[in-house]
């Protein structure tokens, strides 16, 4: 018996083989879908010994048929040009080839996320549209524009892994934090699934492993991140018994495998910070000195990144005292998002209740999310009552 996970996992690989053999990206999609439909009908519950080879053979034949009839229609008098000799099926880097094509730098991040979900993740346009809360026709247009942008470009070698990492990170972020209704596709789980496939095809890339670890280490806390009423629960107040310890263990193992390669990058560092939070049995046991060391590493490779500087100030506040953290915060650009929220947090720790309340109120004015807005207002209200 085979399940639809097998077909879903094989879809991008089969598409990747066709693209590597020279098929245009948009033109390859239909034959692959045809082959999947054929598989569901013909396999009758039992997958053949080499399901991928079976799918590639059927899809490639369909692709050639479609191309022949299209070219026969358009150019009857022109001799059919010689077919490219098919490359071998079964290479792991087809997934990377396809991913790097969908995450091509010429695409906007949102288009790349949508195209990746469609072509590699195998989600329907309707599912993707629901996840992004836009009409299906808008998402269909976004995906077909992305395909047009890529049309004509040949990708025989995989592109930049960095671009793929960024797109998977955005996909995870959207799925992890966005509100999900029953029946909606789980983009965070999808990003992790694709992250695993990517790591399998570039096992020597520590940043690919770093991103997978980062996603696992955050995903492990997902259940505890909101309360029964759907409100955001800050890390320090989360019920840590609801964290997924198996997922944390996996994330830590993946991260350790990456760190031994001694080629540090931002995803590995962020994963290391997440791992240290995950490792604390309660908020008071958090190893802030070690977290601060990782923030120092992160600041060293992203010296002009204000968000890194802001997050580092929180760690400094825990290690060297809130006033030391505040000095760093006040030196940052006043328009930086979450600057007031961090200042409020540190002022409360320093005992400046009135100033903390004032800064929480100020922070609520520029909150980017409804959950964050409500959280900040509650913090301000709590401190105003305490005075």
């Amino acid at each position: 018996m085979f399940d639809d996970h097998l077909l879903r996992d094989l879809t991008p690989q089969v598409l990747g083989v066709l693209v590597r053999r020279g098929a245009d990206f948009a033109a390859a999609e239909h034959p692959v879908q045809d082959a999947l439909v054929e598989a569901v009908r013909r396999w009758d519950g039992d997958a053949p010994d080499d399901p991928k080879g079976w799918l590639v053979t059927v899809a490639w034949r369909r692709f050639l048929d479609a191309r022949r009839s299209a070219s026969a229609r358009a150019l009857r008098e022109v001799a059919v040009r010689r077919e490219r000799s098919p490359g071998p099926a079964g290479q792991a880097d087809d997934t990377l080839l396809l991913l790097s094509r969908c995450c091509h730098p010429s695409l906007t991040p949102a288009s790349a996320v949508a195209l990746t979900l469609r072509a590699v993740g195998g989600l329907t346009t309707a599912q993707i549209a629901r996840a992004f809360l836009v009409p299906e026709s808008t998402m269909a247009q976004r995906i077909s524009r992305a395909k047009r942008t890529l049309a004509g470009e040949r990708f025989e070698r995989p592109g930049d892994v960095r671009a793929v990492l960024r797109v998977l990170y955005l996909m995870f972020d959207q799925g992890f934090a966005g509100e999900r209704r029953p029946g909606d596709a789980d983009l965070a789980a999808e990003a992790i699934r694709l992250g695993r496939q990517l790591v399998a095809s570039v096992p020597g890339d520590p940043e690919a492993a770093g991103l997978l670890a980062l996603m696992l280490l955050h995903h492990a806390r997902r259940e505890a991140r909101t309360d029964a009423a759907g409100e955001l629960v800050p890390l320090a107040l989360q019920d840590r018994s609801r964290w997924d310890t198996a997922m944390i263990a996996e994330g830590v193992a993946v991260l350790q495998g990456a760190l031994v390669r001694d080629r540090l990058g931002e995803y590995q560092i962020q994963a290391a910070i997440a791992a240290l939070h995950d490792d604390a049995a309660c908020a008071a046991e958090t190893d802030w000195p070690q977290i601060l060391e990782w923030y120092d590493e992160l600041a060293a490779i992203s010296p002009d990144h204000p968000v890194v500087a802001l997050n580092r100030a929180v760690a400094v506040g825990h290690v060297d005292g809130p006033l030391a953290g505040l000095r760093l915060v006040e030196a940052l650009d006043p328009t930086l998002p979450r600057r007031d929220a961090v200042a409020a947090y540190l002022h409360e720790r320093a005992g400046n209740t009135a100033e903390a309340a004032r800064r929480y109120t100020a922070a609520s004015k520029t909150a980017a999310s409804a959950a964050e807005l409500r959280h900040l207002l509650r913090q301000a209200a709590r401190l105003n009552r305490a005075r």
Partner: protein
Amino acid sequence: MAKYLLLKHYRGGPVQHPNAVAPMDDWTPEEISEHIAFMGAVADELRERGEFVDAQALAFEGEFVRYGGEGAAPVTDGPFAETKDVIAGWMIIDVDSKERAHEAAARLSSAPGKDGRPLHEWIEVRPFLSHAPVVE
């Protein structure tokens, strides 16, 4: 991607550009048709770019309504005379950046008005509250 509400006002907002002063009933019927056709064309452009979410127009007059207390009828107020801000309609877009949202708003604001001149009317741009970021 982020969603933005582009609000079009009948009245209210900052001081209008001279082209946007004449009320619509001073325009010719053709000018009104061209204005509406332009709005439709901008919506089509946004659809084609994969950025369109929704567009709705509102009636000029409405009322304010509030709870009147246990067992009592709802309390209503309005419609109001010339002093109040009146929203004419909205468009919701899903775009890559604030700059792109401003560009789309400016495009809407360039709709032709009286004598076919660009209106330069104010469009209010309001970002949606979205989700909280993942990494603390």
